[in-house]
């Protein structure tokens, strides 16, 4: 059998495999390519396995060949054994990533060598290093095409490991605006206060829809994300939350129980030096500049 024939055969087998991403068995191959002898098949498959086109599985006693993904194949190309080992470790870790120490222990490679390997893999854009949000010094490695897990990236609120407080603030304001639009419904509602209260409530998914429609967020926000924002409103004392009978959380905006009390209306209530102020000395109420300004 010539080399050309062999290549054709391999190509055919690969085509079959591509059509069945879940894997193919011997039967599938013989069904798809009827004019093949088992000896030819064995040599072809062996060669393919050697070139690491396939992963070999054992399913219910029958052998199953599954095509490896494209990236994997590329990674293998021109890579030495160390790189392969490291790559596999990183691949296993999935989108949670793997810490460099972990790689070193499991691969049994020396530190310098490992750094070199990682660098070369990174330069080939096969893997990437992601900084962990909750430990800024900790770097984890994962495959280049993977989206980091929430526990690593911190979810929608982080951009390159930095917490986007402005984004959160804007969302906070917008959510409050949405709730405020409804808050007046409870006041003197002609259909009764319970209906009024229900009308003044907004579910998290309604708020999420409103936020999405506004188009202020480039990232797609889940209901969960919106709930975190709405919770900050609750902690701001600007909203209260309740639960509907079906278990969904609802929110409505509220006013504080009392208007600003006397203590914060006088300068002393907000004065940073109030604890150093006394009858005599440098800081006294008689000479207080804050009070003078306030009295003007």
């Amino acid at each position, binding site marked *: 059998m010539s080399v050309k024939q062999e290549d054709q055969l391999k190509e055919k087998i690969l085509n079959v495999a591509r059509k069945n991403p879940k894997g193919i068995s011997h039967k599938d191959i013989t069904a798809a390519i009827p004019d093949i002898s088992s000896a030819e098949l064995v040599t072809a498959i062996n060669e393919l396995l050697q070139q690491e086109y396939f992963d070999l599985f054992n399913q219910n006693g029958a052998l199953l060949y599954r095509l490896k993904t494209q990236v994997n194949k590329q990674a293998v190309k021109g890579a030495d054994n160390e790189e392969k080992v490291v790559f596999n470790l990183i691949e296993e870790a999935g989108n949670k990533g793997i810490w460099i120490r972990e790689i070193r222990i499991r691969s049994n490679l020396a530190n310098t060598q490992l750094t070199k390997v990682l660098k070369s893999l990174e330069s080939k854009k096969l893997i990437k290093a992601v900084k962990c949000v909750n430990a800024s010094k900790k770097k984890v490695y994962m495959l280049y095409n993977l989206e980091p897990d929430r526990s690593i990236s911190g979810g929608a609120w982080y951009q390159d490991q930095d917490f986007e407080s402005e984004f959160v603030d804007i969302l906070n304001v917008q959510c409050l605006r949405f709730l405020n639009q409804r808050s007046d419904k409870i006041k003197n509602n002609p259909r009764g206060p319970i209906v009024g209260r229900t009308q003044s409530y907004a579910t998290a998914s309604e708020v999420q829809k409103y936020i999405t429609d506004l188009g202020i967020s480039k990232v797609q926000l889940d209901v969960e994300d919106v709930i*975190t924002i709405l919770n900050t409103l609750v902690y701001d004392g600007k909203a209260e939350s309740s639960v509907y009978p079906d278990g969904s959380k609802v929110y409505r905006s509220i*006013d504080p129980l009392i208007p600003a009390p006397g203590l914060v209306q*006088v300068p002393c209530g907000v004065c940073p030096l109030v604890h150093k102020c006394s009858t005599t000395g440098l800081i006294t109420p008689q000479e207080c500049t804050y009070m003078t300004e306030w009295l003007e």
Partner: protein
Amino acid sequence: MSHQLGRVVSIILHRYFGDIVQTVGDDLFKCGSKPIGMIVKTTGLSRGLVIESLRTLLKYDIAAFEPSVNQLIAEYKLVPENVLLLIRYPRYLLQVKSKYGSEAELLIEELLQQATCTATVLLVTIATKYKDDKEKNITIMSLKDMFISLATAGYIQQAPVAELKEGSEIPTLVPVATIVPDLDTRILLQVMNAGNFNDVKDNIYWKVNYDRFHQDFRDELMIKAITRRIDENAGELMRFLLEQMYLNSPAWAPESNPVSALDVRDRCRRAATDKPLLQQYVDQYLKVLEESGGGFVRRCGDASGGQFCVRARAAALQLVRAALDHLVTERLGSKAARIFRLIRTKKYIEEEDIQKNAMLVNKECKQLTYKLLEEHFISCQPMRKAATAGGMAKAIYLYHIKLHEVAHTAREMCYRSLHNVSRRALHERTLHARLVDKQKRVRTIVHGMRLRGEPQENIDDVEETLTPPEQAVLQGVEKRLKQLSTAELELDKNLFIFNWYFTYPET
């Protein structure tokens, strides 16, 4: 009994009663209780002056006395809470005026000034004072009626009577149950025409019942809070519930005895013309009040269409929380207030969780948390893991809020601010004492001239002795003093909330 309280008490005494009473008051505040001899010794004042000041203090209920161990001499002590009531007088007057009209205001004002007074003297004094005032048209009859209705409503009460116990030289003041008096108009008129009180046999003394006013203030606070939270109808409903509460529970009970919904419904029906919505949806309003009313009202039974408890203690707690929220917001910003509330909601929370839930930048969040800790708004409880070797064991720091202590801190701040505001007012007055005096003199002279009917030119001449720049300065001073006294009233309102909270012991 803190240092700050001492300062504010001292300055208030100075304002209302002058230097000498202030010295005596300070001395009493510092030492708790002591006999006259000791006061004379420590203050260095003459015995006569000390006795005179003590008399003033006792008259206004600012000081109290009790027999010493040997039962022979009296020991005096200051009641600082009552000193603070002095600045609340304008509020009492406003309250009674808005509820009963100007005649009641005159009565209460006179009674506050006299401290204690018999009904005859009180009524005749006021009637004589306004005898010629045609605009107000005050007669002794209407005053008498008003006096009786005030006594019935409990705004005034009989003053305690001194009784001498056996084996003691010192009388004790025994409170008397108030009996609504039956005043004879003829006698009153006789006394008024005679112009002297010599042959009056009236020996029942009256005084203002502060507590009754405080109940009003408390109710007002609760009603306003509910109105802000839900709407006017719910506020009105709260008022009805409170009315019902007074019928079957002590006024300051932490939680009232159950109020039947039937009674409330009945009350709403009577108010149907004003609040049609409330009458229509009274059950719904009760439900909403219970669920979204900040825990002011609790459903405590289903008998006869529902039983409700008014929870004054919970209300005080909520209002103190609201006040503290405002304080934190104004002092450290809304982000800090968010952390403060977050910690309160979660009770005990770790630093990392604060950051996660408050959605703040790590660094900012930590800074604010430490700032809150520094200002004593929150507390920190380290949890060390026991029996771990080496210094590596990481302790967990749990942040939490001790509300009682935070409220205490805030109340101290209130005292401090109150002192500062009063002090500043005093300073303003002394700075411009000469000008203010001059203005007063000019006013009296002009008033006298007007009465004598002297020509306008002469009056103008006198008025022009106050130059325009002086006028401007005076206006400025007046404006500042007005602002300062408004601030005092507001601070007092704030203090009222804290003190209300402190009437209930910490759980």
